[in-house]
């Protein structure tokens, strides 16, 4: 029986692991099989994580977090959780390989998954020009024209990154203003290869063997246009990965896991949630790390209270 199991290997999971390991809780961190390190593994320069004035590559930052968690004794497994049983005093996590792990507490920090556009042919042409990973696939679009859809930091980062390869990058956004940070906006607007398509949504993606164009519809006037592009990069946000806890943990109207005030406490005793799964708003590496820290401290507090209750009752006075 373990003290704590951490589900997730992004900034929230690793920060929770660093604190839990230093508290001698000997955490088991279940990192997933193919998404180890979380969303930052698909980014390039991270310029806003405190402590790295020159910036740091996202994957390098995640390796460092992992090493810091391991240094204090975190055990890490590379597998996916297929089932979580959170209701009892003893929590159980079943893994893809069939193994079952038990613990007194669970810190759930599974992050979020990229949103799809939900249009015809998006899935069929995925890997044939439709992509969710500019850092993976950008280099295949040298001297071509591509489009990025989205208006947040990740969309602008992808658009800017893609100009290393592509001759032209359309940034398609359904509004006339961006959510992205000012620094990211300034950089994208100053980039002569980026052209903004405001008030447009992607309604179609065209191509037989691979993408040769997208169809846009004006969000204000309904006008339809076609853009000839070889690639479509989707960066329209993400949704919290809560499927493992449906029916067990209460969710908010926004689909995130409900927690008590500023704590990480869910509706179930001994179950704590951190990072993007509880955060519909900020979704930053540093806020996720802070959230993981809170979860670890909450778990530690809960375990201390459990130990105090289960120790022999003091002699009556």
């Amino acid at each position, binding site marked *: 029986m373990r003290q704590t199991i951490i589900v997730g290997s992004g900034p929230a999971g690793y920060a929770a692991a660093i604190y839990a390991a230093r508290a001698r809780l000997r955490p088991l961190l279940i990192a*997933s*099989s*193919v*998404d*180890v*390190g979380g969303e930052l*593994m*698909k980014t390039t320069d991270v310029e806003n994580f405190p402590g790295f004035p020159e910036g740091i590559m996202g*994957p390098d930052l995640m390796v460092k977090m992992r090493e810091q968690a391991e240094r204090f004794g975190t055990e890490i497994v*590379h597998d*996916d959780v297929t089932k979580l049983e959170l209701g009892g005093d003893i929590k159980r996590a079943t893994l*893809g390989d069939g193994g079952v792990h038990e613990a007194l507490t669970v810190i759930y920090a599974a992050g979020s998954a990229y949103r799809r556009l939900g249009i015809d042919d998006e899935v069929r042409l*995925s*890997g*044939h*020009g439709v*992509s969710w*990973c500019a*850092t*993976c*696939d950008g*280099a*295949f*679009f040298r001297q071509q024209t591509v489009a990025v859809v989205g208006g947040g930091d990740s969309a602008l980062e992808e658009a800017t990154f893609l100009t290393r390869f592509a001759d032209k990058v359309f940034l398609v956004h359904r509004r006339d203003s961006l959510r992205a940070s000012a620094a990211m906006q300034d950089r994208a607007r100053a980039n002569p290869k980026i052209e903004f398509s405001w008030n447009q949504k992607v309604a179609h993606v065209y191509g037989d*063997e*691979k993408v040769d164009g997208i169809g846009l519809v004006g969000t204000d006037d309904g006008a339809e246009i076609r853009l000839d592009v*070889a*690639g479509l990069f989707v960066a329209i946000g993400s949704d919290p990965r809560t499927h493992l806890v449906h029916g067990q943990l209460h969710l908010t109207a926004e689909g995130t896991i409900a927690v008590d005030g500023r704590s990480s406490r869910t509706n179930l005793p001994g179950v704590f949630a951190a990072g993007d799964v509880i955060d519909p708003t900020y979704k930053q590496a540093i806020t996720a790390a802070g959230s993981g820290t809170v979860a670890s401290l909450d778990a530690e507090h809960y375990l201390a209270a459990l130990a105090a209750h289960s120790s022999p009752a003091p002699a009556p006075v």
Partner: protein
Amino acid sequence: MSSTTAVTDATFQSEVLHHEIPILVDFWAEWCGPCRAVSPILDKIAEENTGKLSIVKMDVDENPETVERYGIVSIPSMLVFDGGQVVKRITGAKPKPVLDADLKEFLA
């Protein structure tokens, strides 16, 4: 990182197109995080299926000819060749049970 054999533009024909059993080519690059994640899973699948499915890898940076010929625009991309023809195309890093299922016709 991986024990899997690397193929190149120069060796593609002899090692892949003329291979006697189905062979999966993992198109990857050093700078691709999801490729690094899926690589040990493919190693494992290769190890478990010796004699049924061979697995090799191709660095997309160094082999533009083959990458172009097979229209690779996303990595990791995993193409299974049998008798010189592409018989299966898988895109994106996936967990082992999912890849096992995608490849089941070759692993039986």
